[in-house]
């Protein structure tokens, strides 16, 4: 068995070496919880000053309550100690990865303990078993980087994969462009270790009572994941990339439906509209078609070059039939640039307006053309900045309403978001594809999930977290009396 221990590139073992000698910020009175934690874990692993705590109250979409203390554990034992201390103090516990989440999952709803996993970065590759054992703070992309020398990859590729952590990916069951063909984070989990609300450690596999499956996507509301065993795969030998652009968003969606109906299974099928393309161009200056209403990026891959190229030809034909203009990426470097462009869409939208209402709907592929057209029409009628992009192959779309709260009405923004959500529900869709519910989408849960199912979910929550200490106020709307 060849087992390679791999240092995690972004945060090397340097972390423990510094810290103590550096000046710490002063200020803010020490909460008793912080004092206890500092005694048990030592000062380097506990943050208690105001400047420190203020920085652990947000994720990539929401700001929450400032925590009373923050722990940066380096081992499962540290997590256990932190959970026990928080329970003794009677305060809630919120797990946090890189805080790149888009549902408010890591932003606390009330003051408590934040456990930030960014220093738990041990990663081991077991090439013979095609497995990676990762602590939760390992950066997503680091798994593939470590596996590649063994001829393996870890396919889940959220656009945030340079920043996001495995723990956060598990928390949200993250997806990405490759997931259309290869599946989402949860499909790669062989086993988990987690710390429960009492501070007890459990090891799970995917056998009967797939408790691991329950934890995946639970946004830290059922337990804190301290290690994951992830399945690795052999990457396809050939990949071909193409870009198509369209004069209308619906035409782009029609091309997607037609290509898939014709039997193509592209590995990535991503869409962005005109505003997205322009925001990206302002950032990267790649020469993308600024005038096009919709842009489609497609990868086909496999081990047989002929099949890969046939598949690409199928997609090309579907795009042309729908009135699109097709361009092939001529080199790996060009393909890499196009995919970097796609990954940058969401933050690049910050150039248009400082704030956003961000949706994550999934609709059946058959209704995609109607859905994108209806949403476009809603946006045009509203006078607000509404843009769309997403993993169109899965029917997973991210309509975003961009706004400036100082000049635009929040009610109007809220109303538009509701209407967009209703389009999805009306066409048989759901409200959360990959970003999770967190606190941002709680308001919609009652519309999207029937009362009986919600009650069943609450019973699960009570069974695993009877005191409601784990990430309260997330995923499930308050129980009805």
């Amino acid at each position, binding site marked *: 068995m060849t087992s390679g221990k791999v240092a995690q*590139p*972004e*945060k090397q073992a*340097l*972390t423990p*070496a*510094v*810290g103590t*000698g*550096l*000046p710490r*910020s*002063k*200020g*803010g009175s020490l909460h008793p919880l912080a004092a206890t934690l500092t005694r048990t874990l030592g000062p380097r692993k506990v*943050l208690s*000053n*105001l*400047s*420190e705590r*203020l*920085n652990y109250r*947000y*994720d*990539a979409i*929401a*700001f929450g309550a400032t925590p009373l203390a923050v722990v*940066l554990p380096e081992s499962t034992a540290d997590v256990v100690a932190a959970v026990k201390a928080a329970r003794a103090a009677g305060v809630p516990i919120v797990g946090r990865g*890189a805080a*790149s989440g888009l549902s408010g999952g890591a932003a606390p709803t009330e003051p408590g303990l934040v456990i*930030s996993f*960014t220093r738990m970065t041990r990663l081991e590759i077991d090439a013979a078993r095609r497995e990676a054992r990762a602590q939760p703070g390992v950066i997503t992309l680091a798994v593939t980087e470590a596996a590649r020398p063994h001829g393996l990859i870890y396919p889940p590729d959220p656009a*945030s994969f*340079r*920043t996001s952590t495995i723990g956060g990916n598990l928390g949200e069951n993250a997806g990405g462009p490759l997931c259309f063909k290869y599946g989402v984070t949860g499909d790669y989990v062989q086993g988990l270790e987690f710390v429960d609300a009492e501070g007890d450690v459990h090891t799970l596999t995917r056998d009967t009572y797939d408790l691991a499956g329950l934890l995946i996507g639970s946004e830290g509301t059922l337990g804190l994941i301290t290690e994951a065993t992830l399945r690795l795969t052999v990457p396809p030998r050939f990949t071909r990339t193409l870009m198509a652009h369209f004069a209308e968003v619906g035409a782009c969606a029609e091309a997607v439906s037609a290509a898939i109906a014709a039997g193509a299974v592209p590995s990535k099928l991503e869409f962005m509209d005109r505003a997205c393309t322009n925001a*990206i161009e302002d*950032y990267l200056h790649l020469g993308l078609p600024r005038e096009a209403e919709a842009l489609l990026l497609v990868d086909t891959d496999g081990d047989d070059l002929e099949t890969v190229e046939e598949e690409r030809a199928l997609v090309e034909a579907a795009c042309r039939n729908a009135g699109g203009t097709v361009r092939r990426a001529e080199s790996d470097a060009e393909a890499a640039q196009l995919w970097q462009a796609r990954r*940058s*869409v*969401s*933050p*690049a*939208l*910050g*150039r248009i307006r*400082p*704030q956003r*209402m961000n949706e994550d709907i999934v609709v059946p592929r058959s209704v995609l053309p109607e859905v994108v057209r209806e949403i476009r029409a809603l946006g045009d009628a509203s006078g607000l900045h509404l843009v769309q992009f997403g993993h169109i192959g899965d029917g997973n779309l991210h309509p975003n309403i961009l706004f*400036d*709260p*100082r000049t635009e009405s929040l009610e109007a*923004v*809220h109303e538009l*978001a509701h209407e967009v*959500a209703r389009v999805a529900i009306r066409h048989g869709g759901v*409200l959360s594809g990959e970003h999770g519910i967190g606190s941002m*989408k*709680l*308001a*919609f849960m009652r519309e999207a999930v029937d009362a009986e199912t919600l009650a069943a979910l609450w019973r699960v929550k009570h069974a695993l977290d009877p005191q409601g200490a784990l990430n309260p106020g997330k995923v499930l709307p308050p129980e009805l009396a």
Partner: protein
Amino acid sequence: MGYEGKVPVNNDILTHHPDGQGEVMAHAVDACVHCGFCLPACPTYALLGDEMDSPRGRIVLMKEVLEGALPLYDAAPHLDRCLGCQACVTACPSGVPYGELITSFRGWSEPQRQRSPLDRAKRAAILKILPAPRVFSLAARVGQFAKPLAPLLPNALRSPLDLLPEHVPAMQPSAAFTPARGQRRGRVAFLVGCAQQALTPNFNAATLRVLARNGIEVVIPEGQGCCGAAALHTGARDEALKLVRANLAAFNPDDFDAILSNAAGCGAGLKEYPAILHGLPDEAQARAFAAKVQDISEYLGGLLEDGELEPVLPASRPLTVAYHDACHLAHAQGVRSAPRALLRAIPGVTVLEVPEGDLCCGSAGTYNLEQPELATQLGIRKAKNILSTQPDLIASGNIGCHTQIQSHARRQGSPVPVMHTIEVLDLAYRGEL
């Protein structure tokens, strides 16, 4: 969805700071969508792994301080650790001008800092010595003799000595005018810089030779001085303003095709003038000035692209050159391809890419003096990464990087020569490479 009206990203900075600098800071904070894309790019986040020492964290801290919600002294340790390397600017899809934010913030906050007398004296000395090449040269030559004492000194005093070359050359002031060789094709103004005049006078000599060789006449306007970047980045805004205005008076952009610098840090500083003077009467003048500023490699790269660069003689043997991206060139000025293209234009030269090439070398202006511990860790890491490519030569476009890399490469036992890109080009023109 489910926006609960409690997302205070948009800020209240202008209410507290209703001036030009307030506008610069408010705009930057506004543009941050806290996506975290900058986290993996930030050297201090890479070393420390906590949010306060990340770009996103610092933006939030500055916002809180500016709005009066957090005392300055509480945020200061984390803001002080920022290298100003602007790797976060390259990584940021939302276009947050982080460099302008931290510069303005330091300018606003420094006068309110309570520093120890030793700290104050050290900073005052840096700001006095750096912009005065003659004094600097003298200090460097005195320091050279103090090198053997280094192990006895505290870290803060030791690190600058470590960085001094073994041999500090005598000052060689550059001629006020260098005529073009052959047919005159252009006319540029040149900023001679500070530290490099004392430590590495060949940078400027090589620059003048290469420009003349290409038919470019070079004027070194009288009255020019330090670009002000060091003062600015340590928060000495009043001193910086004096230096900025002296340069605006010395350089008339209408007289020249371009205003050139061969020190990435200075060039980036010159390009910052409009932000520094934002909202002040001379802002327009600063814009006209900054529009003409180019790094030497940017300018020569332009000639190369237009097919107008004088052909270079081939290297005497195949040479591998590890090119180090200076942060103030790659991140602050977006100049990456031109220096590589210039090196590749020398027949026989292969350019090597350095692993973790986007990560700062830790030199970062006065960082070596202010944060010796982190600077040293980054220096070690950078030298290791560069040397892992096993180059024949190391090239970069900045005096700070140059001394940092040289000193750490030597400490790791490597004799590989470290040069400015322009020195490599100059040797090639002379047939001595």
